[in-house]
């Protein structure tokens, strides 16, 4: 594990278990730096989703130390979790769009939660819809959108508030290869704007599509470091950007 200076996320010997079952994550230690692009890989059941849950504060670890944006997530009071969550954008594997809201309102949700007025919301949401190529589908409800369109709405919702970190769980799992590449380009564009991106995928072909990315590999709940992503400074040049 690095020194943690300038990091946004630090995991130190983290373990996670659900109830009294065996640990799904064991002795996980790593540091994420601002502006980096990480792939989290591993076979199904390796613990990727559990790791992401820790990253987007849906779960507290059973042991170890987790620090995010300077906060100790073990001791952080529950009422302060929203302020940390607002710095993180999440793309869920199953999108989790609000079914009764149209594309515009789904994308606007984080801004409304942040307390922005309708006047302040209109333009950024319209811009975001255009950015993901759905400006003609603003009024469409999730049920009438294709899988790819839903995916793009979910991504737009995750990034609309310009999060410091984007966490995406199998974001290309439900779309065709062409759309998968297109979505990755969206993530790269966001990454170039300074957002740390963590994409969980079991698709090894995807890793080659983002040349500057770093890889964290999970195997039966334990983390390995094939590219040196978890060391600091990272082995690849240009990281962090």
């Amino acid at each position, binding site marked *: 594990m690095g020194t943690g200076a300038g990091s946004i996320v630090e995991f130190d010997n983290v373990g996670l278990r659900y109830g009294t079952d065996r640990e799904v994550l064991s002795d996980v230690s790593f540091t994420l730096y601002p502006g980096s692009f990480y792939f989290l890989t591993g076979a199904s059941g390796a613990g990727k989703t559990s790791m992401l849950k820790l990253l987007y*504060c849906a779960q507290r670890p059973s042991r170890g130390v987790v620090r995010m944006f300077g906060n100790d997530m073990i001791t952080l009071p529950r009422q302060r979790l929203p302020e940390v*969550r607002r710095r993180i954008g999440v793309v869920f594997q199953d999108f989790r769009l609000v079914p009764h809201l149209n594309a515009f309102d789904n994308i606007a949700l984080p801004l409304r*939660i942040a307390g922005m007025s309708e006047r302040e919301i209109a333009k950024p949401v319209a811009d975001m819809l255009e950015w993901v190529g759905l400006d003609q589908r603003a009024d469409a409800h999730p049920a009438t959108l294709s899988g790819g369109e839903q995916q793009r709405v979910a991504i737009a919702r995750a990034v609309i508030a310009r999060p410091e970190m984007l966490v995406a769980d199998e974001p290309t799992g439900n779309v065709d290869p062409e759309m998968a590449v297109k979505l990755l380009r969206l993530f790269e564009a966001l990454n170039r704007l300074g957002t740390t991106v963590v994409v969980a995928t079991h698709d090894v072909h995807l890793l080659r599509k983002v040349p500057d990315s770093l890889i964290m590999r999970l195997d039966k709940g334990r983390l390995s470091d094939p590219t040196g992503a978890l060391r600091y400074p990272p082995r690849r040049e240009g990281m962090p950007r």
Partner: protein
Amino acid sequence: MLGRLFESAGRLMPGEAARLLPQARIGGPMPWVIAIMVALTVIAAAAALALDNVAENARSEIAGGITVQVVEGAPAERARQTQAALAFLETDPRVTEVHQVPQEELSQLLEPWLGAGAVDDDAMATPSLIDAQLDGEVSAQMLSSLRAEMAKVAPAAQIDAQANWLGPVFDALRSLKLLALGLVALLALTAAAAVWLAARTALGSNRDTIEVIHHLGGTDGQIAAIFQRSVGIDAVIGGVAGLLLGLAAVMVLGAQFAALGSGLVAGGGLSLGDWGLLLAVPVIALVLAMITARATVLTALRRKL
């Protein structure tokens, strides 16, 4: 307080809260449940207030009242002692008003039980009755002193405070009033329980959306505000409907009791302040519903991360 409640409900997403969680809009039976609760509460509260007024009016009317019965079999002696008792009362400084109940009135009072013409000194002797009003309430000490002095001029005279006769009536009125107030409390509890149940159900049916809002950085307070606002709308609709129903029932019942023409019941009319209290029932129901909804949602959310 109400303003603050609405303010906190509306702060999150003006105009958007209800759209965010449409199923949080409890709708359906909730306005009707609140309407029925408010209507019943208005009727029960009106009953409690009316009974209180009846008791208060009767108490003030008879507070200083005494009744003197001259119980003497011989008509001539009864008449003599009656005159002596009247004379004594008229000169006593504690007495402000004296009135002998006429024999005809007495006969009319007894007629339903004894039949017409049965009240006759030849057939059955009846006591003479004198109503008197004292200056101030009748105390046991005053009653004892009057009895002692009266015994000297009219030994057959028996003096009773009117308040003592009506003691059981007052007790019954007090019990009825307490029952009505108990009903008001029970109805408030039932309304709160109905809101609690509805809020829990709405929370369950919106679990996924609530989870998403949490993940996007939404606070418990923001989520609670959505439910609070929704319940508030239901409570306003139900409260107004219930108030109208309740007031209509109170007015119909009031008119029917007024038609009885009984002095005791006539004292149960509602004052302006009483009507004001009845109008406050839906407002109290609204506040109660919103507080219950907020507390229910916050308690349930606290169990989640």
